[in-house]
């Protein structure tokens, strides 16, 4: 969708939410759901940062690490891409304690989401690094940079710009995936919705609100990432990049 349609949809979603929250039949639900949305946002934010870190580390390890490290990175990537997020979540939640590692549900939630997204992200980072033309490596060698210097100063800055759009998709997937943490008792937006639903049985009302809230957050994320993408490519042309 074009940027303008996205903004249009966002305005529509926020408008609907604002209107609903003035109506009597929705009024009681709003505070509870917004409270849950706050948890959803917090988990999304922390897991996004961690996922990005995991992705960069895993991609660099996979591309440039010593052989055993390279293998370790591959195992991590294949394992978390190859299994289902829900299975990973439940494994950390139910199985890990049996190995004597009891983590708080919130930690488990953040860890599962970030490890999972980080594995997908590692492939994004790798693809972006490999998409930087080989001439950039050669020019770096010609001015006698080491591989590390070339990677840090020349290749990664260019790769970062290339990876903004796929990371936008990953962050949206991450946001959507946070709904699963309700299944391990984290009181996120989905958890609150299910709770309200079981008490009031006003399914249509509650879930309409919840869908609108998720839609709003998703669209805002999309707009932020599009903005970043635009700024980065304009930065290449005009302003400063770093």
């Amino acid at each position, binding site marked *: 969708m074009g940027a303008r349609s996205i903004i249009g*949809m966002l305005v529509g979603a926020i408008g609907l939410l604002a209107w609903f929250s003035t109506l009597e039949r929705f009024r009681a639900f709003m505070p509870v759901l917004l409270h849950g949305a706050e948890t959803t946002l917090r988990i999304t934010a922390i897991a996004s940062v961690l996922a990005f870190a995991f992705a960069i580390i895993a991609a660099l390890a996979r591309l440039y690490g010593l052989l055993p490290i390279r293998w370790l990175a591959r195992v991590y990537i294949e394992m978390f891409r190859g299994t289902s997020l829900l299975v990973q979540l439940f494994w950390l939640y139910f199985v890990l304690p049996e190995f004597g590692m009891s983590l708080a549900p919130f930690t488990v939630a953040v860890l599962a989401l970030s490890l999972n997204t980080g594995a997908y992200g590692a492939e994004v980072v790798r693809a972006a690094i490999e998409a930087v033309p080989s001439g950039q490596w050669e020019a770096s060698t010609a001015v006698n940079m080491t591989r590390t210097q070339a990677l840090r100063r020349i290749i990664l800055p260019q790769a970062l710009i290339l990876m903004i759009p796929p990371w936008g998709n990953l962050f949206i997937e991450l946001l959507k995936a946070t709904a699963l943490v309700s299944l391990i008792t984290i009181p996120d937006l989905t958890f609150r919705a299910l709770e309200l639903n079981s008490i009031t049985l006003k399914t249509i009302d509650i879930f309409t609100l*919840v*869908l609108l809230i998720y*839609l709003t957050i*998703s669209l805002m994320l999309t707009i932020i990432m599009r903005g970043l993408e635009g700024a980065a490519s304009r930065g290449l042309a005009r302003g400063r990049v770093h």
Partner: protein
Amino acid sequence: MLWEWSYALEVLPPLLRAAAITVEATLLSFAIAASLGLALAVLRMLGPMFAWPLSIFIEFVRSTPLLIQMFFLYFVLPQFGVTLDGLTVGVLTIGVHYATFCAEVYRTGLENIPRGQWEAAVALNLGVFTTFKDVILPQAIPPVVPALGNYLIGIFKATPLLSVVAVLELMGTAKILGSESYRYVEPITLVGLFFLIMSLVSATAIRAVERMLNRRTVG
């Protein structure tokens, strides 16, 4: 020892039975996703009257969690007098959810068809339906098969969600087995292994298909 082979062997048969349901749900969902996705992509090309509402629908479905969509249909459909079992609701939801992703895949395939092909079809006086069926789709679909294959794997990995609408697929079964015996290590780890193996095998298969398609277009 943390891992008990005897228990692992004990839970294997029920898990394998559940795996059959997982595979069945995957294939049914993919069938919906692939066909509905194609319908969405083609309808969107037929003019702004369709394009507008469909784009909003697609963006909406892509932007909200599958889990919520599943709960929503599971709880709401009965209020309209439609009572479906969990598997049907779940498969429908996954199918529709991934149809919106497949629609985008088909769209890139369709957009890569050179204008000349459309113009040639017009020049031959072919109808819209014939043009799509005999000229455009046979060219547009093969290149996107690998991308569709990736969504097949995506759907496969989404099926554990079915456990929340009371479908006894792999994950749900493993959880029940775990709660009965208070031992989660074996069932959940086995489920993870099953997913890993199936994903790796399918990814290899997709790569093979991709190579085959490349050879066909190059050679």
